[in-house]
């Protein structure tokens, strides 16, 4: 009987040790970003904007003075139904700037990976609109159109928007 009880204790200890070996499920890439790629309106080929690009939202600058930019990864608002992004282009050697405005309508879904990992906010893009402008020799880039390539904004890092630019030749 003593042997029987000892076996029970050994097995219970083994089970308790094995039960303690649980890893964390927190994803390594846990940043939600809207990924935008820049393309030429005529050829559908990727371009890098040579002007200094600054993108701002209501209270904050979310991209500051980026040069030779082909893609951008931007945060989205947690609670708003639509985000208004102002793209500010500053040509090289110039103090003056001009801007385009992009309005992205979307839903906001709180996402809890697990109680240990905290909370993120996923989004689903429903519509995109933009301002209209004609490029000129000084400000050579103007948004022509925007296509939604992946409406789900989450951890996966895939491109969400294709922003097509009309270029001044």
């Amino acid at each position, binding site marked *: 009987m003593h042997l*029987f009880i000892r076996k*029970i204790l050994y*097995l*219970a200890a083994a*089970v308790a040790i*094995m*039960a303690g070996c*649980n890893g964390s*499920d927190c994803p390594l890439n846990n940043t939600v970003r809207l990924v935008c790629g820049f393309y030429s309106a005529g050829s559908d080929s990727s371009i890098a904007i040579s002007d200094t690009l600054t993108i701002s*939202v*209501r*209270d*904050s600058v*979310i991209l500051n003075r980026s040069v030779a930019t082909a893609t951008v990864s931007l*945060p989205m*608002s*947690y*609670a*708003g139904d639509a985000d208004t992004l102002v793209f500010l282009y500053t040509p090289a050697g110039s103090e003056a700037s001009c801007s385009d405005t992009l309005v992205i309508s979307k839903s*906001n*879904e*709180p*996402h*809890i*990976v*697990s*109680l*240990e*990992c*905290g*909370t993120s*906010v*996923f989004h689903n893009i429903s519509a995109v609109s933009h301002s209209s402008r004609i490029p000129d020799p000084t400000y050579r880039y103007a948004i022509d159109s925007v296509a939604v390539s992946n409406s789900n904004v989450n951890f996966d890092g895939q491109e969400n928007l294709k922003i097509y630019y009309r270029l001044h030749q």
Partner: protein
Amino acid sequence: MDKRISRYIIACISSLLLILPSAHAQLSGLRFKAESDTLPLIMGGQVFANLAGAVLWRFSDYGELEGGARLNMRCKYFPTVEAGVGICDKTNDETDLRCKTTAPFLRLGCDYNFSRIKTSPNRIYGGIRLGYTTYKYDLYGPDISDPYWQGSTLPIRLKGISGNALWTEFVFGLETQVWRHFHVGWTARYKRRLHQKGSTNGNSYYIPGYGKNDAHLFTGTFNLVFDI
């Protein structure tokens, strides 16, 4: 001389005392083995309650109130049904996120008695279970403050999210008779989640009847068992 004879007799008696129990056990084994082949198909049944699940529920963030019944077929096979209610109210200390659920679950399966002497009231079990639950859960958390859109917050109050889960369990258990029809026993269980439906908002921290919502885990039960 007398001393030597008496020492010889004591040695013989001691040897017999050592040999007799093992010989008796071997004979009993043969007798029981022969009996198990001629036992009736249905030998009664048992009902049981899991004490460990109730203690866990009382003293930790989650647990189960569960019981079950099993049929005794020739003291070899024990088709088993287990059912209960899984309860969870867990708040993470670091993130302040909270998950709450209370839902029923059902497990069906069969145990096999590995004991050499099948009719012995002390049994060693191995078995499998298939478990299923459908449940609703709530997720709460502190409002999320937006770092870029100042003053904007998103509340986390997700109530009544629907989920279901299917899993399998590999069971090893021991059971011993305490008094007449009353037994106690425990089982160690390796559980593997086969299917889970949750929400894009997040899955439940706990699956009723399964345990913490990991792909696989080890758990155990401590059963109070009564023969019927």
